[in-house]
Structure formats: structure tokens, C-alpha cells
């Protein structure tokens, strides 16, 4: 399996670590993990980093996840990069809003490593 460069966006550093651990538990070899604590930081990070996968919370200060997904479409380094939302917001309207804005997957917290594996590997075109 090729190594993966991931951008993890969550205002909680604990959740960023847990998401990273879940990716490793999914059997993913991570070449690089870029962290951001909100959407605005993530947009800046993408100016200098090329990634293969973005995992993003919704409820964050400064810039929330839905606004990030809308704005990231214009960032050169993010073109075609799959975005998976990982959030406590479980309502259908949030799912629809995220997918309409350009997200390709949606995982509700609390989540198991298997759920991360299921969503992420298929988006990266890999077999579980």
C-alpha cells in the first residue's frame, strides 16, 4: 500500500491524535500528517503541503468544517483530494450540506477504527 499524506482538521488536539491512530489502525502507512485546528489554518497549511486525504471536523471556531469544504475547492493543492467529515453532528441536513459542499464521506463521532477504514480506503481506491 502506498504511503498516504493526510491533513487532519479538528479543534481538539486529542481528536486529531485519535483520527491519526485510527488511520494507522486501518492499515494505512502515513508518510506525513498535517494538523490544523480550524478551517482557516487548514487553508493556509494547504498552500505549502500536498496531501492525499483530508479528514475534517464540522464544529470549530474561526472557520467551521462546512465553510472549509466550500473554500478548499479553489485551492490548487486540494483539487481532487477526498474530504471526509468526522463530526458529532449527525443530522441529515448536516450530511447533505457537507456532501453538497464537496465532502466525499461522513463519519459520526463516536467512531470505531473500522468505520474510518471503511470510508477512507474506498475513497482512496484501496481494498479493506
Amino acid at each position: 500500500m502506498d504511503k498516504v499524506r493526510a491533513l487532519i482538521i479538528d479543534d481538539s488536539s486529542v481528536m486529531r491524535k485519535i483520527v491519526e491512530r485510527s488511520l494507522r489502525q486501518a492499515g494505512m502507512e502515513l508518510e506525513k500528517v498535517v494538523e490544523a485546528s480550524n478551517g482557516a489554518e487548514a487553508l493556509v497549511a494547504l498552500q505549502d503541503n500536498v496531501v492525499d486525504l483530508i479528514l475534517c471536523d464540522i464544529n470549530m471556531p474561526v472557520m467551521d468544517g462546512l465553510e472549509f469544504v466550500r473554500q478548499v475547492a479553489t485551492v490548487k493543492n486540494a483539487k481532487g483530494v477526498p474530504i471526509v467529515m468526522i463530526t458529532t453532528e449527525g443530522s441529515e441536513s448536516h450530511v447533505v450540506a457537507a456532501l453538497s459542499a464537496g465532502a466525499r464521506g461522513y463519519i459520526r463521532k463516536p467512531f470505531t477504527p473500522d468505520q474510518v477504514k471503511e470510508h477512507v480506503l474506498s475513497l482512496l481506491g484501496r481494498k479493506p
Partner: protein
Amino acid sequence: MSTDISSSTRAHKESWLPILDLAVEEVFEIMLGCRVKPVTPSEHPVHGEFTAMVGLAGSLCGVLTVRCDAETARQVAKSMLGDTADAEQQVADALGEICNMIAGNFKNKLAGTDERCLLSVPTVISGGEYRFRSMADGDVVDTVLLFEGAPIAVCLQLQG
């Protein structure tokens, strides 16, 4: 478990308490790999050296708090992150996320509420010398659960 409510329905401790307990149990089991069980609050007093809170606005309006002593908060963080979790910032962060997930999981279980209820980002207070007073003056649904033998109090205070 899912329970229907109308927008005008007030919380009833008897009907929402099992849902809150289940929401807490699921979060601890899935994210920490630990089983927690509800206990009688009067037999397990909680020393609130760490208090995490998440606001709810919309069809449910109020605040959900998670309260425990400092050692228990550290154990929660270690269960989430491993032995690297020791700094107070990480401990507070972990408890805030637990509170956030409990609030989200609880409202997801109340059919018809999830669409119309938003959560704030978590806030965490550390230190025991404070009084907590919510302006939410409605129903209160509270529970105490044992995590590795230590009590953790979870309280939902709703605006009347």
C-alpha cells in the same frame, strides 16, 4: 434507542435518563474501550475538579456538563491517548471531546431533535473552587457513572 419528542416537549427525567446513560456508555465503550455503569449519585459524590460543558441551542436549549476529579480526568485522557496524555491541556481537551460526543450522541438519539439542535464548541474549567450556575432554569437530567471505579457526573440542564 430513539425517542420521539415534539418541539414543545419538556424533558422528563424518567424517559430521558436511560437515553443519556446510553449515550455516555456508548461514547466510553467506542472511544475509550471501557464500560461505564450508572450508579446511585448519593452514594458516589463527585469532586468536580474538571468540568467540561457544551451548550445546546435550538429545539433543545441548555448546557450539558461532564464533571470529575483530576485523577479521573487524567485516566480518561490516558484511555483515549495512551500514556502520553499528561499535560493539563491534553486532559482538558480529552474531557471536552468526551462531553462534545456525549451531547452529540444524546441529541442524535432523540428523533426530531437532531435537525434542529446545534452544539457549541466545548469549554473546560479546571480547579475546584468555583460555583457553576446555569441560566437554563428548566428540567435537569443528571446521572453518575463509574469509570474504572471513579464517579463521573453527567448533567443536562435545559432552559425552561
